[in-house]
């Protein structure tokens, strides 16, 4: 499976990474190379094999559904590039 320029553009957008038009051909080539490498997996007979969900047979622990932490919005916002009045600030999303 090789990735063409349109697919590369679409993947970049899905990944929310801006890629300049001029860089798309090289990117498409690299992604195709990696996918070709992955295609070796098609040689393996995986019929009757369940996809692995957990590498160690373990049941995820459950914990009580209670509040154990919180109450410090200033710490939560301390690293934000733009925080105002106790909120993260972003460009306008609703017209």
């Amino acid at each position, binding site marked *: 499976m090789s*990735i063409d320029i349109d*697919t*590369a553009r679409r*993947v*970049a*957008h*899905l*990944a*929310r*990474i*801006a*890629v300049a038009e001029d860089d798309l051909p090289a*990117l498409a080539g*690299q*992604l195709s*190379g*990696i*996918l070709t*490498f*992955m*295609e*070796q*997996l*098609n*040689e*393996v007979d*995986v019929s009757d*094999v*369940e*996809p*692995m*969900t*957990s*590498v*160690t047979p*373990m049941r*995820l*622990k459950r*914990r009580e559904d209670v509040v154990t932490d919180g109450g*410090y919005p200033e*710490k*939560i916002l*301390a*690293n*934000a*590039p*733009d925080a105002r009045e106790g909120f*993260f600030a*972003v*460009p*306008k*999303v609703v017209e």
Partner: protein
Amino acid sequence: MSELSKLTLAEARDALRKGETSAVALTEACLSEIEGAARLNAFVHVAPEIALDQARAADARIAAGDAPAMCGMPLGIKDLFCTRGVPSQAASHILNGFRPEYESTVTQKLWDAGAVMLGKLNMDEFAMGSSNETSTYGNAVNPWKVDDRDLTPGGSSGGSAAAVAADLCLAATGTDTGGSIRQPAAFTGIVGIKPTYGRVSRWGIVAFASSLDQAGPMTRTVRDAAIMLGAMAGHDPKDSTSADIPVPDFEAALTGDIRGKTIGIPSEYRMAGMPAEIEALWSRGAEMLKDAGARIVDISLPHTKYALPAYYVIAPAEASSNLARYDGVRYGHRAKLAEGDGIVQMYEKTRAEGFGKEVQRRVMIGTYVLSAGFYDAYYNRARKVRALIKRDFDEMFAQGVDAILTPATPSAAFGLGEMQDADPVEMYLNDVFTVTVNLAGLPGISVPAGLDAQGLPLGLQLIGRPWEEGDLLNTAQVLEDAAGFVSRPAKWW
């Protein structure tokens, strides 16, 4: 004073308990070595005030007779660990300026045990790389040198490996998703262990591929690895995949007796084009274990060749999901926006500026293999192959194999920049012997075992049964003793 920074953890612990030195003296010695080693670019944030405070507290604890094994030990911490108030940016530009308000479980456990944080260590960006060349801080440099070239310390825990090998700290933390502890350990002549998946909490460690990531110690000796792993391991309610089982005394497992143990030699690891000296080292390692009373058997792990392609589906898939959080909203870098840019442009520009090329590639590959129409063909197929890879190991262990011996890396350390024009896939081949262990969730350790013809260190890897790190460390120590690797890099920096 520089001799103090050369001590092993075991030696330093004993010296502290006997009152022959102090945690402050050890810490000052390391800080002074770090100051003189800027050329190695191993430490990227130094925290002398925190270090000396912690060292004084450790001395007080030792004086009071309350001294756990790690008390007073000056450590380097990989930049992937969140450390409260100290920059923690996974060597990425996108986390520029990030100072966590919290402490990772592993580092908290180390500080609770009295250890001292010297600072943060260089690494590949988001732990994606095998040469420490994808870091926003620039390359870390291997203290080993054979000619004019600067060599890679390996990756992703390259700064950790360089710092331990160059005696800038007594030991360091690393993390290993596909070989990121064991490959740099091998490239720098030190010991690195990746524990069983779930042995060590991942909470507070910047996530790369959550089903593969494990933290572990990088040390000068196997005994040190046993000591430090004991302090890092244990159940953590904050990591639902951390195992709620007791942590044994790993150091007590180092009996030196491996008589009757069965060591498997997997034929599939004998790769075409493998350098003769690596093959010879591997055979010598098997001989050493045999001389110590182990039984050496040839084994087969038939799905080995599919481990790398499976890994390079699964790890990027998980990374694309984990790295979605870097969006310029809550922490780190946000791109300057043009007039009229909306939130999607903010995400796209922020991530284009913040992520390096290799991280971008992996996020995009991960996005692709998880996208509608390709999920089954790539991601689900890779997870099925992963189940087969694990089954290969399970079957060998069921047949009585106690540990598996392989080379740690397909070559010795290479020159920085030498792989620059290579295909990304060529760099991935560095992980060929280590990545199976992550896919199967097993413990694996790299032990320095010899020098190549140029005089660079080479490592051997031992792979153990799940949860039996003690037994694995014991076998590793036998190998370490028999190999008698004592070479150290000559100081040139």
